[in-house]
C-alpha cells in the first residue's frame, strides 16, 4: 500500500511540475497600488489579475506585487479590485520590467458580491469553534442511505456496527462512543434519551443539506451535553427550489428505499416542505452462514412536514416529524412469535415530534435578536431479542430561549437565555420496570469578543438545576486566532455533562446471554474536554487545499462504565470515578491538485483508556490507529463523478473470553483491515444515476457471533463485533429533480 500511495504522490507532483514548467515560460510581474488623497502611494492587496483570453488568475500580495504566467501573447491583462476601476493593459511581448499599475478609486463602489462555491467538505477559518462542514456535494459522494452512513468519507467521525442482531450503527468521536456526541438538527435535539442507539437510522441521508461537526465541547447555548463533539444537521429548505425530488435506491441485500421531497413557495413569506421516506429489507441475508440474519428485515417509514415563515422582523419554522419501524432479526426462519423454538428478534419504534422555532429581530436595535426553540416528542420502542425484552417510552418537552445583543459595539456580543427540559421515561427490562422523570431548568450566558474576525474568544457558562442530581455547572472557552489569513489556531476547553440511560444507551448489547448487572445508583457523567487545532489552507493551481492537525484530551471526572471484562457471561454498568481518558490525535490533508480532483488523507491515533474490571486498560472496540484515504473526481462538464474511499482500521482490544469453553474463546485483539467504498455517478440534465460498492475487499469477521449454534445457552454473544459481518455490497439508485420555476 505504501508503494501505491508513494506512486500516486510522485505521479501527482510530477504532473504538477511538468505542467508548471510548461506554462511558466513567460512571467509578467507587477505591482498594484493606488494614490491616496494625501498623495501617498499605497499598495492594493488582493486585487484580481487575470488575462482576457486565458483562465490564469492571480491576486496581488499584501505589498501589492503579483506575478502571472502567460501562455500565449498578445493578450490583455486585466486588474480589478473592489472599489476601484478596472484597468487593462495590452501586452504584446514578454516584459523585462515590472508593471506599475495605478488603480483609480471607482466613482461608484461596485456591489460586493460573494461567490460561494459548494466545496463539498470544508473546514471553516472564521468560526471560533473548529467547524467542519460536510456539504451536499460531499453527501452525494456516498449515496447511502441514512445519517450513520453519511460519515463514510469523513475522518472525524467513525461509524461502527454495535452488534450482529440489531445491525444498528453507532458513531464515535475522539474514540468515544456516540452517546458522548450531541446530535441536533437546526439546533433542535435529534437523538437523546431512548433514541440514542437507533436514532441515526431515523434521518434519511437525502433530507440532509449539510452536516456541521465540532470536536470537543460545543457552545453552552445548545446545552451541557456535548462531551466528545457536537453534530448539527441542516435539513433541506424550501429555498433549495426542489419542487419535487425523488430518490430510489436498491442494493444486493434486498434493501430498497424511496425518498420523496417536495417544496412549495406559497408566497413571499410562506413556504412549506414535505419529506417522505420508505425503506424495506425484503430478503433474509446470511452471508457469513451462522444461521442469523446479518441485517434486520422489515419496513421503515418516516415523514416530516414543515412550514417556514419569513417576515420582516420575524422568522419561524415549525412542523412535525414521525417514524414508524417494525423490523425482524435473529435466526433465519424466525418471526418472533411466542411458540417458536428459534432465536427471534423484533424491534418496533414509533416516534412523533412537533417542533417550533421563532426568531425575532428588533427594529430599533440592529443587532438584537430573540430566538425560541420548542420541541415536543413521543418515542416508544418495543424490543425483543431472544428471551430478553426491553420496552421504553419517552415523553419530552424541550424549550430554549436565546437573546443576543452587542455590548457597545460589535466587538463585544453576548448570548444569554433560559432552557427547560422535561423528560419522562418509562422503561421495562425483562420483569423490572424503571420510572424516571427529569426536570431540568437552566440558564446560560456566553460572551464573544471579536477582533476583526482575526481573534475571537467565546467564553460561556451554563447552570442547570436537575431535579434528581442538583445543580450542574458547565463552563466552556473557545479561542480562535488567524495567525495568517490562510491559517487558524483554535483552542477549546470545557466541561460536558450527560445523564446516562443504561439500558437505552446500550440496547445493542442485549444481543447476548450476558447477565446485566446494572448499578441502582446511576449518576451524571462529567468530563473535561480540551483541544487544540491548527488549520492551514493553501492554493494548488487556484484550488483551495487544506491541512489540519488536532489533538484533543478528554478526562472523565465521572463516567458510567459499560464493563464486559468482568466475565464473558456478565455485563456490568456502574459509575466510576477511576481514571478514564481519551487522547485523540488527527492529521488531515486535503489536496485539490487540479479542478475536479480531490485527494484526502487522514491519520488518526487514539489512546482511550478506562478502568475495566478494576484495571486501567484500553477501551474495547476502539482502534489505536486509523487511516483514511479518499479520492474524488468530477469531470469538468460535471457529468461524471467518481469516488473511492479506503479506511484502514487498526487492531482493537476485545474483552476477554478466556473462561469460555475452547470453541467459544476469541482472540484478545482484533485484526486490522481495509474497508473500500467506491461510487460512480452520471448526471443527466434532469436526473442522475449512481452505482456503488461498499466493502469491496469483502472483509468479513469470521465467527462473529460467539456460540451462534446455541443462542439460548450461557455463552451466546453477538456483541463482539469489530468488522463488517455481511461482506461486500453493490448498490444503485437514481435521483430525479424537478426544479421550481425560478423567480
Amino acid at each position, binding site marked *: 500500500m505504501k508503494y501505491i500511495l508513494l506512486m500516486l504522490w510522485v505521479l501527482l507532483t510530477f504532473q504538477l511540475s511538468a505542467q508548471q514548467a510548461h506554462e511558466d515560460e513567460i512571467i509578467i510581474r507587477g505591482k498594484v497600488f493606488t494614490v491616496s488623497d494625501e498623495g501617498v502611494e499605497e499598495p492594493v492587496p488582493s486585487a484580481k489579475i*487575470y488575462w482576457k483570453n486565458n483562465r490564469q488568475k492571480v491576486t496581488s500580495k499584501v505589498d501589492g506585487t503579483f506575478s502571472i504566467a502567460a501562455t500565449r501573447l498578445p493578450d490583455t491583462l486585466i486588474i480589478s479590485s473592489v472599489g476601484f476601476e478596472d484597468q487593462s493593459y495590452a501586452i504584446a511581448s514578454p516584459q523585462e520590467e515590472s508593471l506599475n499599475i495605478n488603480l483609480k478609486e471607482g466613482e461608484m463602489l461596485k456591489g460586493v*458580491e460573494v461567490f460561494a462555491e459548494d466545496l463539498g467538505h470544508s473546514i471553516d477559518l472564521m468560526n471560533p469553534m473548529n467547524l467542519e462542514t460536510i456539504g451536499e456535494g460531499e453527501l452525494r459522494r456516498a449515496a447511502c442511505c441514512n445519517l450513520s452512513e453519511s460519515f463514510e468519507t469523513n475522518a472525524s467521525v467513525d461509524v461502527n456496527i454495535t452488534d450482529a442482531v440489531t445491525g444498528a450503527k453507532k458513531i464515535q468521536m475522539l474514540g468515544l462512543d456516540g452517546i458522548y456526541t450531541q446530535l441536533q438538527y437546526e439546533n433542535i435535539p435529534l437523538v437523546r434519551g431512548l433514541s440514542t442507539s437507533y436514532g441515526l437510522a431515523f434521518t434519511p441521508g437525502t433530507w440532509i443539506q449539510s452536516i456541521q461537526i465540532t470536536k470537543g465541547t460545543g457552545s453552552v447555548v445548545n446545552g451541557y451535553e456535548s462531551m466528545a463533539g457536537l453534530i448539527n444537521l441542516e435539513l433541506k429548505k424550501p429555498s433549495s427550489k426542489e419542487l419535487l425530488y425523488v430518490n430510489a435506491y436498491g442494493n444486493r441485500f434486498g434493501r430498497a428505499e424511496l425518498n420523496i421531497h417536495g417544496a412549495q413557495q406559497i408566497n413571499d413569506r410562506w413556504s412549506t416542505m414535505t419529506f417522505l421516506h420508505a425503506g424495506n429489507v425484503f430478503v433474509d441475508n446470511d452471508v457469513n452462514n451462522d444461521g442469523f440474519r446479518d441485517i434486520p428485515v422489515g419496513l421503515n417509514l418516516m415523514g416530516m412536514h414543515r412550514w417556514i415563515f419569513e417576515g420582516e422582523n420575524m422568522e419561524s419554522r415549525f412542523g412535525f416529524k414521525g417514524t414508524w419501524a417494525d423490523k425482524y432479526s435473529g435466526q433465519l426462519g424466525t418471526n418472533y412469535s411466542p411458540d417458536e423454538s428459534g432465536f427471534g428478534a423484533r424491534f418496533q419504534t414509533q416516534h412523533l415530534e412537533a417542533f417550533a422555532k421563532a426568531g425575532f429581530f428588533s427594529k430599533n436595535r440592529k443587532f438584537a435578536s430573540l430566538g425560541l426553540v420548542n420541541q415536543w416528542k413521543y418515542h416508544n420502542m418495543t424490543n425483543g431479542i431472544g428471551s430478553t425484552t426491553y420496552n421504553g417510552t419517552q415523553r419530552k418537552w424541550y424549550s430554549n430561549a436565546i437573546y443576543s445583543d452587542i455590548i457597545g459595539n460589535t466587538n463585544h456580543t453576548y448570548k444569554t437565555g433560559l432552557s427547560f427540559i422535561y423528560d419522562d421515561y418509562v422503561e421495562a427490562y425483562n420483569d423490572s420496570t424503571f420510572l424516571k422523570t427529569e426536570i431540568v431548568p437552566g440558564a446560560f450566558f456566553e460572551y464573544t469578543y471579536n477582533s476583526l474576525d482575526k481573534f475571537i474568544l467565546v467564553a460561556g457558562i451554563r447552570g442547570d438545576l436537575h431535579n434528581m442530581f442538583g445543580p450542574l455547572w458547565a463552563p466552556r472557552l473557545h479561542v480562535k486566532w488567524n495567525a495568517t489569513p490562510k491559517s487558524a489556531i483554535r483552542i477549546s476547553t470545557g466541561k460536558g455533562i450527560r445523564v446516562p440511560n443504561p439500558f437505552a444507551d446500550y440496547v445493542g448489547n442485549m444481543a447476548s446471554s450476558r447477565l446485566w448487572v446494572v448499578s441502582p445508583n446511576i449518576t451524571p457523567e462529567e468530563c473535561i474536554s480540551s483541544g487544540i487545532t491548527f488549520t492551514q489552507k493553501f492554493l494548488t493551481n487556484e484550488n483551495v487545499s487544506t491541512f489540519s492537525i488536532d489533538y484533543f484530551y478528554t478526562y472523565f471526572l465521572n463516567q458510567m462504565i459499560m464493563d464486559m471484562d468482568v466475565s464473558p457471561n456478565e455485563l456490568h454498568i456502574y459509575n466510576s470515578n477511576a481514571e478514564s481518558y481519551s487522547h485523540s490525535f488527527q492529521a488531515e490533508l486535503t489536496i485539490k491538485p487540479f479542478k475536479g480532483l480531490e485527494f484526502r488523507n487522514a491519520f488518526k491515533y487514539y489512546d482511550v483508556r478506562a478502568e475495566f474490571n478494576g484495571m486501567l486498560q484500553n477501551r474495547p472496540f476502539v482502534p489505536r490507529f486509523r487511516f483514511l484515504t479518499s479520492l474524488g473526481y468530477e469531470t469538468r*462538464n460535471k457529468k461524471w463523478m467518481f469516488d473511492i474511499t479506503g479506511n484502514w482500521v487498526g487492531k482493537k482490544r476485545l474483552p476477554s473470553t478466556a473462561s469460555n469453553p475452547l470453541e467459544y474463546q476469541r482472540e484478545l485483539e482484533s485484526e486490522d483491515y481495509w474497508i473500500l467504498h467506491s461510487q460512480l455517478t452520471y448526471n443527466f440534465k434532469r436526473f442522475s444515476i449512481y452505482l456503488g460498492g461498499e466493502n469491496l475487499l469483502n472483509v468479513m469477521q469470521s465467527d462473529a457471533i460467539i456460540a451462534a449454534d446455541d443462542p439460548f445457552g450461557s455463552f451466546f454473544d453477538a456483541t463482539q463485533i469489530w468488522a463488517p459481518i455481511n461482506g461486500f455490497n453493490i448498490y444503485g439508485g437514481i435521483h430525479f429533480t424537478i426544479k421550481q420555476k425560478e423567480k
Partner: protein
Amino acid sequence: MKHILSILFIVAAMTSFGQTEKPSKFKEVTYDVSAVCKMCKDRIEKELNYTKGVVFCEVDLAAGNVTVKYKLKQITGEKIRDILVNMGYTTDGVERSEEGYNSLPQCCKGEGCGKK
C-alpha cells in the same frame, strides 16, 4: 523504485505529449458574459454541458467569463455564443436577446436575489 520512476516518467511524458497533439479536433474559447450570480452559472453550465459538441463549460463569475471546450466538427464558436445570447446574456459584446433576458429569473437580471 528506479523502474517505477521511469515508468511514471513515461506516463507523464505521454500525457503531456498527448495534450499538445490534440488541438486540431477541439477548441477552447473564453467568452465574456454578463452572468451575475450562482443561478446564472448553474443555468449556463447546465445548458452548454448538455449541448451536443460541447466537451465542458465552466463559468467563472469573478472574472465574468465562460470557458467552453468544444469539438470543431460538431459545433462552432459562433453557435455557442448565439446560445448564450439567446439565453439572455450579452456575450463578447453581442447584445443579449430581449426574449431570453425577459425569461431569466430576477436574480439573473441583476434585480436582486432572494426575497429582500
